[in-house]
């Protein structure tokens, strides 16, 4: 709805029957909202594909005429510019004769300023509308600023204005601020709009190119299949012809023509694989920016075992009585379970020498209690 300037009566009015086919503002959800009005209501929050998905609930009730979905299954609520809901028939009744006050807040409204509802919460509806409007003009980017600080200040100001508009704080003053900004930055705003458009155009072109390539591939595939089928048919006919005309051994004739057919298919496969590999390349190129190469395996990623052991195990083992029970039964339950007393000795020795390579703490006052702890070796687990 771009031409709202001419007045509220210039809105498109179309016949009810044809409304659904040409109307883009209708939601495509299964619970389609049917319009009973002759007016097409534009606006609303559009998604990426340019459609408006309307909010729909079984509990809808028009706050003006109290009609609900039970009484009127075709009930459709629209939102006014002052963010009040009312049903289409109320809108028709109240506003067909020209601008009239809102029955809820008395603000003067026009019929064409009603929009479909997308969000359940009208606060969100309003915020989205305000942010859209603000983003259209406050479209500076990071590279328009000399440093991060000023960019952040700018963002802060934008947020401030947005907040004021949403919550209706100092509206006249805020509007004046926006006007001032617009006057000061007219050129830059225009430039940024152009840049956005160029970027969108680029994206569209890229998508187009990809689509064309896909279509081409599909076509190529169909053509090949067709060729293959024809060739097979021809081969069969040839064999029959030869068998009819020649006096050679039948088996030999069949085998020869089979071999020729095989050679042909192989040739075709080779060219086909070339084709697919090039398309594969294309696809992989798109993903290349995120592609990280695999690296060969590195067993351990630290140098724990690089140090020499500072101990040597006694070859005959140790005669400690803690492990006496286990050592007595070396070939019994211990053997079957995989327990090795050597591991216990190794752990004890390793733990006791583990700190030898560490330089002593310096700069700390030596307290007697620390020394005391040092003497008593407690196994670290």
């Amino acid at each position: 709805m771009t031409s709202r300037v001419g007045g509220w009566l210039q809105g498109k009015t179309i016949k009810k029957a044809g409304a659904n086919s040409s109307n883009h503002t209708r939601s495509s959800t299964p619970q389609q909202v049917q319009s009973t009005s002759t007016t097409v209501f534009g606006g609303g929050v559009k998604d990426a594909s340019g459609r408006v998905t309307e909010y729909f609930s079984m509990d809808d009730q028009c706050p003006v005429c109290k009609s609900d979905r039970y009484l009127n299954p075709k009930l459709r609520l629209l939102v006014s510019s002052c963010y009040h809901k009312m049903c289409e028939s109320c809108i028709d009744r109240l506003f067909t004769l020209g601008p009239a006050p809102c029955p809820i807040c008395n603000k003067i409204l026009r019929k064409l300023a009603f929009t479909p509802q997308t969000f359940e919460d009208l606060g969100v509806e309003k915020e989205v509308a305000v942010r859209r409007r603000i983003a259209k003009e406050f479209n500076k980017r990071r590279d328009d600023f000399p440093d991060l600080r000023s960019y952040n200040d700018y963002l802060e100001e934008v947020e401030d204005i947005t907040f004021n508009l949403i919550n209706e704080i100092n509206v006249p003053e805020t509007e004046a601020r926006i006007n001032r900004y617009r006057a000061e930055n007219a050129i830059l705003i225009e430039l940024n709009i152009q840049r956005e458009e160029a970027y969108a155009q680029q994206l569209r072109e890229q998508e187009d190119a990809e689509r064309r390539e896909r279509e081409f591939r599909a076509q190529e595939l169909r053509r090949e299949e067709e060729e293959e089928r024809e060739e097979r048919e021809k081969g069969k006919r040839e064999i029959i012809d030869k068998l009819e005309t020649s006096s050679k051994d039948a088996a030999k004739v069949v085998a020869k023509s089979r071999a020729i057919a095989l050679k042909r298919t192989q040739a075709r496969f080779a060219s086909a694989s070339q084709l697919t590999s090039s398309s594969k390349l294309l696809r992989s190129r798109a993903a290349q920016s995120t592609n990280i190469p695999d690296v060969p395996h590195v067993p351990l990623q630290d140098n724990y075992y690089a140090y020499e052991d500072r101990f040597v195990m006694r070859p005959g083992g140790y005669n400690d009585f803690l492990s006496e029970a286990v050592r007595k039964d070396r070939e019994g339950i211990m053997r079957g379970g995989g327990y090795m007393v050597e591991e216990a000795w190794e752990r004890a020795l390793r733990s006791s020498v583990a700190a030898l390579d560490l330089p002593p703490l310096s700069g700390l006052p030596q307290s007697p209690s620390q020394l005391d702890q040092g003497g008593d070796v407690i196994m670290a687990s």
Partner: protein
Amino acid sequence: MDAVEKANAARQQQWIKDRKVGEGTYAVVYQGREATTGRKVAVKKIKVGQFKDGLDMSAIREVKYLRELKHQNVIELLDVFSSKTNLNLVLEFLDSDLEVIIKDRTLVFLPADIKSWMAMTFRGLEFCHRNWILHRDLKPNNLLIASDGQLKIADFGLARDFADPGYKMTCQVITRWYRPPELLFGCRYYSTAVDIWSVGCIFAELMLRIPYLPGESDMDQLKTIFRALGTPTEDDWPGHAKLPDYVPVGQFPKPPLRDLFTAASADTLNLLSKCLVYEPRKRITAKDALSHAYFFALPYPSHPSKLPKCSTVMNKPLDEIDANVEVASDPGAKATSKSLKRKLASPTEAKARSIARRLDFSKAPPSSP
């Protein structure tokens, strides 16, 4: 307020709980974040008050061992604090686990992906074993996957330090399908080889996409193992007939692994068979496994960021932080680990653990269990 309380309160303020993501008998898990940086964390609140015995055993184990371990492939315990009567563990936040990924039929695993996961598992496990800690509950569900693809070993609720002379260890650990035969035979003295068996089962599961040895009971588990790998002889596994709960289960021939893993390379099957050797002493160690030819052969292991990820957003991402938190998808396996935990809380081992072990062999032992 004394100094300890003050320090605790300061710690508590560093972490913000956002929403509850799972609850079990012993713990409630919240998703949260660090107040200063906004980093996502998981806060596991352990209910203390309602148990007669005091703090849940698995919580003590978890704090005790995770506090010591810091490695790329082991879940990080960021902080511990108390609130009222509850103990809170602040853990790294991880989005999914290997079980979910294995079960997601829309994902395709390349041999390189499996290699990468195995390498990360072995690295994490090697780090635990190097620090004398047995995990004792390895299963796909406890291997969590970070958002950057790194695999991290989690749930140290059944972990234990090993290589201390003379202490019996319980054999009622490890979820049944991943439990090695020596534990099924009731062995009380075992070693790092138990974890390797579990990793072997996980390795096979990654290739098959279904659990490799799903036994229905402990007895059936032995039968399932022997059916898959043949009944061990005294040569295969010396001393197994002397294990406490040894029972002859029946004679099964040894079918070649190749029959089941038809597409696997020779290196793959070699490493798998070395993880599933009957004799624990001959089972490969985590450190040796990392140097196995399988890992050096082409294709190179996938870069973690390229590994398959779960497409659907998990609504209960923290269930696997601890099997205690019950939102399980697999009732069989879950029930096992829960019953294990209940058994664990009481036996003699708990008493023995509470005494500080000393290195000095010349002194008398503090007590013998």
